């Protein structure tokens, strides 16, 4: 090594300097570090519903046919330049944008730009059992839960940049589905390359898309590294590098933010918000978000198959206590799955009140005067709709003890938790949902429909014909007012049957260093750092 003296001097200076103002070395100015709360399960949004995964991969690696305007929730053109809908509402024709380049990575070099074949490849995977990649995934949870495969009857390529979907019945939420993060467009050429290499699993693990960033490296539970896509069809990102640092522990995440090891951190603990907003070098962004945290009962397991029992339990919990202790007042109490800012929200829904005496009475009527034992499964991680499920479970446990129900709190490591939940081992679970678009169907169907009970996002395992009929009618109607009426009926029915108890709609927060700009929270989907900029 060269002489130590000047080395030491510069070193000491650089440390002293950073005490006053972070003087960032050149590399650090052109790279953004985002501290995520978990590892992605896959690099293909078709296969997942987890918010953590979607945040990490969706808006960065891929584009969709349509996008959602974050300001007003309206649909805007994405990879599809324009589209037409037939009179009967069954045929949708899309005209694709030209000159859209795919990623060039260490494992793939594209020879052509995006065309209709790629769109067919992407959606054909979901629709056609003969598609070579159909079987490489066990399920497509979002699409399964909205029965998309039954909805789309035909998918035809009309020209190099023209493609046509034909539906089996009219569906007003079809376009919204194409705008969700799950409808990312993949590369057919890459698929062909993988088939000839016999490495088909790479489609979901070494991703290729058209998005603003391309995949460079992934180390499980450690980090994801993206480079800027130099030929992105929209405005190029200002950041050369985007690194997603995986930090499941909340305290460590905030610590990394405070030392500027991370530039942006999501879902800060609500208790620390006031602390962080007091510091000059950080900014707390808030956004009313489309989400709901709820307590779902496994309606296939007795005694939760009885409406009276579920109603009793819903009267037994003190929601305002929970809102204060868990959400620190930064959330609205929920009476329905839909948040108040949804256009289908029913203002006249009965407000759930806290009535332990009524709860006891109902329990006795249902045949459990002495109460019973049950599990409450609580997520070990912080999520947007529930910042502290374990604490919430403790509060509920104490409330339930008042009516004679003895609850045990169960928790596992997050991926193990989701796995076990999928196999329906739970009595009840504290979980939630964040919207993928502005359509109410996005809440009501994936959470409580019969199809969703099979695909797994219906944690209450609830399958009710009346409810399914109501939401089906709602999507078949093109007129907004009629749709709203059906949705309100559905919400009222849900409140009567109480397969789950909606608890709160949380505001969404994120904390960033003051020198970071252009990272607003997207109320309708995953985070997006395309427009992120860093100043010195």
């Amino acid at each position, binding site marked *: 090594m060269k002489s130590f003296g000047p080395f030491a001097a510069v070193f000491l200076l650089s440390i002293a300097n950073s005490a006053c103002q972070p003087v960032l070395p050149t590399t650090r100015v052109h790279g953004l570090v985002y501290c995520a709360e978990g590892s992605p399960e896959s690099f293909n949004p078709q296969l997942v519903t987890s918010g953590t995964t979607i945040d990490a991969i969706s808006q960065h690696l891929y584009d969709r046919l349509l996008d959602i305007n974050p300001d007003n929730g309206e649909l805007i053109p994405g990879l599809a330049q324009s589209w037409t809908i037939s009179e009967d509402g069954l045929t949708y024709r899309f005209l694709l944008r030209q000159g859209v380049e795919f990623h060039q990575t260490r494992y793939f070099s594209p020879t052509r730009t995006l065309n209709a074949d790629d769109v067919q490849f992407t959606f054909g995977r979901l629709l056609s059992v003969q598609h070579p990649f159909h079987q490489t995934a066990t399920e497509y949870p979002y699409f399964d839960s909205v029965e998309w495969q039954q909805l789309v009857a035909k998918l035809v390529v009309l020209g190099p940049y023209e493609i046509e979907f034909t539906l089996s019945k009219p569906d007003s939420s079809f376009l919204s589905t194409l705008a969700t993060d799950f409808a990312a467009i993949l590369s057919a050429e890459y698929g062909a390359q993988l088939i000839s290499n016999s490495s088909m699993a790479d489609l979901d693990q070494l991703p290729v898309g058209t998005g603003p960033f391309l995949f460079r490296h992934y180390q499980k539970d450690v980090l994801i590294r993206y480079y800027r896509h130099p030929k992105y069809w929209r405005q190029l990102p200002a950041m050369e590098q985007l690194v997603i640092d995986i930090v499941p522990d909340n305290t460590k995440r905030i610590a990394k933010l405070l030392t500027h090891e991370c530039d942006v951190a999501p879902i800060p603990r609500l*208790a*620390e918000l006031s602390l962080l907003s007091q510091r000059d070098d950080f900014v707390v962004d808030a956004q009313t978000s489309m989400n709901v945290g709820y307590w779902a009962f496994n309606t296939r397991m007795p005694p939760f198959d009885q409406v009276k029992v579920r109603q009793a339990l819903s009267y037994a919990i003190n929601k305002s206590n929970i809102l204060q202790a868990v959400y620190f007042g930064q959330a609205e109490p929920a009476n329905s799955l839909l948040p108040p800012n949804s256009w289908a929200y029913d203002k006249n829904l009965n407000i759930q009140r806290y009535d332990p005496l009524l709860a006891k009475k109902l329990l006795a009527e249902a045949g459990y005067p002495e109460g019973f034992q049950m599990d409450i499964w609580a997520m070990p991680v912080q999520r947007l709709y529930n910042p502290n499920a374990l604490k919430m479970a403790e509060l509920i446990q104490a409330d339930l003890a008042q009516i004679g129900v003895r609850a045990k709190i169960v928790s596992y490591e997050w991926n193990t938790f989701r796995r076990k939940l999928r196999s329906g081992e739970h009595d009840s679970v504290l979980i939630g949902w964040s919207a993928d678009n502005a359509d109410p169907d996005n809440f009501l169907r994936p959470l409580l429909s019969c199809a969703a009970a099979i695909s797994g996002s219906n944690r209450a395992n609830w399958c009710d014909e009346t409810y399914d009929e109501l939401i089906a009618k709602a999507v078949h109607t093109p007129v907004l007012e009629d749709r709203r009426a059906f949705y309100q009926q559905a919400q009222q029915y849900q409140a009567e049957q109480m397969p789950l108890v909606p608890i709160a709609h949380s505001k969404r927060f994120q904390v960033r260093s003051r020198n970071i700009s252009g990272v607003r929270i997207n109320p309708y989907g995953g985070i997006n750092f395309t427009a992120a900029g860093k100043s010195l």
Partner: protein
Amino acid sequence: MKKLRLYYEEHNKGPFKLLWKHFSQQHFAFFGFIMLLLLLSLAVLTPFLTPHDPYLQNSQLLLVPPSWQNSGLVSYPLGTDDLGRDLMSRLMAGASYTFGLAVLAVLGSLLVGVILGALSGMSKGVKSSVFNHLLDLALTIPSLLLAIVIVAVLGPGLMNTIWAIMLALLPQFVHGVRNAIQQQLKQDYVTAYRLDGASQRQLLLFVIFPNIWEQLVLMFTMALSTAVLDIAALGFLSIGAQSPTAEWGSMIADSLDSIYLAPWTVALPGLMIFITVLAVNLVGDGIRVAMKKRREN
């Protein structure tokens, strides 16, 4: 008032009194000793002394600051943690876990170590030498590693880690006892006793042990500081004490989430551990110096 000495008499104090005299002359060591006595009584009497129940949660009083801050309450002198439990009561209860259990673990290890050390110290030959070296080398496995293995086999929990700590402390006791005994065996008065016809057992009980007890006490204090730190560390890593047990190390781990809002919930249990270990080390140092002084006189 000093004792009036009318006649010239030789006052020969017994070894224990001499040691005590030298020990108590060191102020710091004596102070440490008082601290230890306080902690020991706390460990034993905690159930009667705590102002509140250390495990009672109170959702109305979360993260109350200590009473000297504006928003603090006198009824909760050191504040509350994130589940509303009184911190002072938990700290007092923690004495019985972190300190009390450490004392018990070291006592247990000492007992077994003395037995094994005596056996190996009194025996001679290749067998004993092999056993000694084996023990030296093989059981230098780090205490944390031993704890991990035991926890992997038996599951996490305070008692399981106590076994690990006892095992980890064993070799130094065996080694120390053996060395001390072998040193004693070289002494003339031991030969004298042997010539007198003392059996091995009599030799051990009446000649050797009275001469090595102070080394045993020294080893005890050294092991005690290690034991306290180990219990706390294992509790901190959630390998040992599990929440809601009020062990100081696991209290720190539980409160890490609130470190920004309530740094006292992290600082105070750590302070207790520090004070305890400091007191033990002060006493240990004091004993060592006292022993040296007594020898010199």
